[in-house]
């Protein structure tokens, strides 16, 4: 078991978002986290990454309780891929990937040949080795996302946490990133990613977690969690879940019979 949550409650002091979360991810398993804006996905991720304390319950990473691990030890086991961002300075793609070695380089040290090899291997695994010398600020959004993923792989973690990895990507790059996620899981990583597209839960995820704004948690196999009924309850719009070429897809209802007046819940 790589990542486990037992009776986990998360939120901020005085504002509990959800409680009683039970997660168990093995190597090769992929968890897709869904939920409306303001539903607590970011807070859950910050809690999973140890960036803010759990309000109750326990997190276990690679068999060790989170509380017993230093920040460096957490970074050896768990890597975070933030949303695509535009940084202030034009580091090269290789320099970005090398930053993933921070927890394996001494406090006053610099990356050695082995670290460079690990970074280059990560770039190669994601097919962006030719971009190594290019400024990270000048490559496309999809390539930046892959560079951040390469940085996470250079960390040599047991598990990956990706914050909306397909947001801001064109359709082709969305599919490519989801394929890479599946491939990385097949190579033995446990993966947690969030998304706004429920379809993505059916693209290689083994588990889905649906966070509702009222703190209700729905967790299980994607076919059980991502249902028309649950999506309607969480997002407030009518959805049909249909099977196309053997894959489940979510089709929103735009026709009569759907809610006559679209309501925009406050986030």
């Amino acid at each position, binding site marked *: 078991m790589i990542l486990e949550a037992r009776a986990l409650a998360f939120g901020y002091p005085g504002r509990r978002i959800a409680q009683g979360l039970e997660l168990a991810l093995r190597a090769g398993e992929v968890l897709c986290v869904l939920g409306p804006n303001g539903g607590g996905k970011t807070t859950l991720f*910050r809690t999973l*990454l140890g*960036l803010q304390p759990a309000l109750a319950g326990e997190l276990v990473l690679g068999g060790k309780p989170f509380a017993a691990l230093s*920040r*460096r030890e*957490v*970074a*050896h086991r*768990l*890597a*975070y891929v*933030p949303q695509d*961002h535009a*940084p*202030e*300075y*034009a*580091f*090269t793609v290789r*320099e970005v990937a090398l*930053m*993933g070695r*921070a*927890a394996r*380089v001494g*406090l*006053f*040290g*610099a*990356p050695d040949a082995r670290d460079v090899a690990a970074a280059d291997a990560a770039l190669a695994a994601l097919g962006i080795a030719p971009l190594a010398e290019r*400024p990270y*600020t*000048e490559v496309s959004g999809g390539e930046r996302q892959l560079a951040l993923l390469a*940085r996470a792989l250079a*960390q040599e973690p047991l598990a990956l946490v990706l914050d909306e990895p397909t947001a801001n990507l064109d359709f082709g790059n969305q599919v490519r990133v989801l394929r890479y996620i599946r491939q990385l899981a097949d190579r033995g990583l446990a993966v947690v990613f969030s998304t706004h597209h429920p379809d993505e839960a059916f693209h290689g995820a083994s588990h889905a977690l649906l966070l509702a704004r009222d703190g209700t948690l729905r967790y299980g196999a994607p076919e059980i969690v991502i249902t028309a009924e649950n999506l309607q309850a969480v997002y407030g719009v009518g959805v049909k879940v249909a099977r196309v070429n053997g894959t489940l897809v979510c089709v929103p209802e735009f026709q009569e019979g759907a809610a006559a007046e679209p309501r925009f819940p406050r986030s």
Partner: protein
Amino acid sequence: MTRSPRATTFLAGIALAALAAIALTLGEVPLSPRELLGALASLFEPGETADQATQIVWQIRAPRIAAALLVGAALAAAGTAYQGMFRNALVSPDILGVSAGAAAGAVLAIFFSQDALTIQIAAFIGGLAAVALAYAVASAARRHDPGLALVLSGVVIGSLLGAVVALVKTLADPLNQLPPITFWLLGSLASVAPLDLALALPLVAVGLIPLWLLRWRMNLLALDDDEARSLGVPVTAMRLAVVSAATLMTAACVAISGVIGWVGLLIPHAARLVAGPEFSRLLPLAMLFGAAFLLVVDTVCRTATSIELPPGVVTALVGTPAFLVLLLRARRGWT
């Protein structure tokens, strides 16, 4: 830029040594290369009676040139560290109030008619205290983004101390106190004595050590706090180390030279245009650029006209065109 970074830094070092040699020959009494070599060689022949050239070189010009090199390199290093850490290329070493604090300390000491050493110590302590206060206020503001809170409290405390300086200027004796206050606030290397250098050099070195030791890890501070933490970086501790180091260096410089703006803001840019943002390559080049720049500026200040020009004016006059040339010619973009 096809040259390797190491070669670029090496060439910049050679160019700096050449500039320093030229600066030694320039002044009220111009020296020929032969006289300069003779004066430099006399260092290895103690006991000889020093001729005029030797006295000019070692007693008048060398301390001042050394001060320009030291202050320029230190301000550039502090600015480079801050621009990376605050993820903002518009930040200068003054951002947390170190210069404002030093100015308040110096001006109060002049007001209370203290001697030169006391004025320097008051400036140094004022600079450290202002930043310590800004850091304490920012740490107490837990609900805000730490970097932003730090910059905000630094700016606020800086403007408070600016008011203190303005108040003292209003109250000061216009004949005996105001001229030295104005002179101090404009900044100058004219009166830097060897003893000042001996005091400032170790302080700058102590500030530089953590920056150099952490030179690769400094790159990670340019990431979001959450990102850096998830990579295993103790962000808060590192930020405190960098603020302490940069403040120590800047306060030591301001204490001996007064406030010389511009260097810490634009030299890191110039170096980044050439070397890229990677801190371990950037820091040495920025220090060489800063040293060379302030050396040129101060040489112009003391030789261009019969009176001493304020370096703050010349930094802008010399620096702006030089920076624009770099900006237009460098391959990399602004960031």
